[in-house]
């Protein structure tokens, strides 16, 4: 590409004068985050308070974690597209290995020392925000009407009576990757042989392949989708709204996931960005997110409160002990095979 670069330099020298010099007076931090309830929780329990206390504005960029990573990698070595990024643990591992994250300074992110040891990265390239789990969500009314028992095993998703009513998570999301790994494990494989899981998943007569939890939520509400591999957060939130939605960790075991927060390499305001990260890890925000989403907090300071909360324990892997009962995928191994997995998914599932 050297040729292209030099050609362009020659061709476009004039054009420089076109782009106005940007003089930045106030600081605005850009945070790349998930959309939906999580984004709202961050806004409510971290950003608003942070802006009120420091005068630093916060702007949120919503997209899938995979899209955030793509943006960071595409602009690697250039100006960062955002200062802070919230990711699922599968993408976090990939981001760390791709060198697009920057080290957190424990002197600024003082809450780092209060995190559970397993929630800390040994290189401090990210901090765990919370724990959640992946199982099966289902529409109780629809199953009852069709005479199908409530699911207990992952294999129940292949029930022929469910044809056209199962939503399958797309491999772009962590739910999809969890599902592929779980199915690979149940079919004599592991993270290095995603094709074993994908071949099995391709046999599901799917209603659709979801990448948006909100779309899925609307389809669950309307009764289009009866059963779906999903995380505990939205499913239990729907049950709280008195909708006939159940959530179960199948007998073969559920999968444990975490969401992390990191400083992006090349951020223009690393100090301010880390101050904000510290707010997100603060006990106040941790409890707020745990109740609202619901999730298991990563900050040890709130452990006593969480242990006393039986309702939260029912809805989420609230303590690291309960998190350990779930299977924790080896993301480094899976990510080495991600290209193979995506390719196999394209060929098997996309028509």
């Amino acid at each position, binding site marked *: 590409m050297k040729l292209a*670069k030099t050609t*362009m330099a020659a061709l476009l020298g004039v054009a420089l004068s076109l782009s106005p010099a940007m003089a930045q007076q106030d600081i605005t931090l850009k945070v790349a985050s998930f*959309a*939906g309830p999580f984004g709202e929780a961050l806004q409510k329990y971290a950003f608003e308070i942070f802006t009120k206390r420091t005068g630093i504005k916060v702007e949120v960029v919503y997209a*899938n974690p995979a899209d955030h990573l793509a943006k960071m990698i595409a602009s690697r070595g250039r100006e960062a597209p955002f200062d802070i990024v919230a990711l699922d643990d599968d993408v976090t591992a990939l981001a760390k290995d791709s060198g697009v994250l920057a080290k957190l300074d424990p002197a600024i992110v003082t809450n780092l020392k209060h995190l559970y040891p397993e929630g800390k990265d040994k290189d401090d390239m990210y901090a765990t925000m919370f724990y959640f789990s992946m199982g099966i969500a289902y529409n109780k009314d629809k199953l009852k009407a069709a005479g199908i028992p409530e699911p207990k095993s992952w294999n129940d998703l292949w029930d022929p009576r469910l044809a056209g009513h199962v939503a399958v998570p797309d491999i772009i999301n962590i739910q999809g990757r969890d599902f592929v790994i779980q199915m690979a494990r149940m079919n004599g494989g592991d993270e290095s042989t995603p094709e074993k899981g994908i071949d099995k998943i391709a046999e599901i007569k799917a209603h659709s392949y979801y990448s948006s939890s909100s779309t899925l939520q*609307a*389809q669950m509400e309307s009764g289009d989708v009866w059963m779906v591999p999903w995380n505990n957060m939205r499913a239990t939130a729907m049950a709280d709204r008195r909708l006939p939605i159940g959530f179960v960790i199948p007998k073969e075991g559920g999968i444990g996931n975490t969401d992390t927060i990191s400083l992006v390499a090349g951020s223009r305001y690393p100090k301010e960005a880390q101050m904000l990260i510290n707010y997100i890890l603060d006990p106040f925000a941790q409890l707020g997110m745990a109740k609202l989403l619901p999730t298991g907090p990563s900050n040890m300071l709130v452990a006593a409160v969480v242990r006393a909360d039986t309702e939260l324990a029912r809805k989420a892997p609230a303590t690291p002990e309960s998190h350990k009962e779930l299977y924790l995928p080896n993301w480094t191994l899976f990510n080495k095979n991600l290209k193979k997995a995506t390719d196999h998914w394209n060929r098997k599932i996309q028509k």
Partner: protein
Amino acid sequence: MGNVVLRAVLIGAFLFLLAPIAMVVVSSFNGVGVFAFPPQQFTTRWYREIDPGYYSALYVSLVVATVTSIIATIVSVPAALALARGGFPGRNLLSSLCLSPLMVPALVTGVALFQFSLLFWDVFKVTLGGTITGLVIGHLTFAIPFGVRAVLASHTRYDLSIEEAAESLGARPLQTFFQVTLPILKPGIVSGAVFSFLISLDEVPIALFMGGGSATTLPVKIFTAIEISFGGDILAVSSIIVAISVVAMLILDRFVGLERLFMSKQ
């Protein structure tokens, strides 16, 4: 008999054309399971839940569309005049060159600009992607050809003897240009500018690759939201856009004529 069939087909076709637009509005008031029919519960909650980010995205869209169509008009009017009147060599080739972006799928232009902005940073250390400047650059690719084509089209009916008459009556060249040429070409210029503005407001593939962060246009914001969080609030935003479009449509039909606007697009 044939008449009945024809009438049924006609009604069916028009229902088909209008159905999704009407349904956006109806469903935005549906309380439970927004994709289900019949609607179960009337609510205005989705309208209250609209993320303020959509309003700032609308602002970005309006700024980009306005700047784009102004620059495109300034650049394309002289170009179209030159192509219509000039006797320089290679005029046909240059004319195809000016219109060529319209032959390229917007997605291809979008990914090309994305790569271009990465290389541009490597060479000049200036960020184009994710800025308003980047969006305007992206949208000029179709706005300039639209402008050139619209002015060229209105120039074919142009009678040069009017200008000669003006000059023989002692008008200076500039005076002739502003008082004779421009007013006659005005319909073409206006329809080119309006068209660029409208396409810019609605465009996704280019703005998807050139925008991002605070430079996210409204259609891109909705487009990405469909992928990650598609719910009732999106239907509410869409209904507001429908309402605005209907008003814009009526105004345009009054002053420009919708039929002519789209006939000239082909």
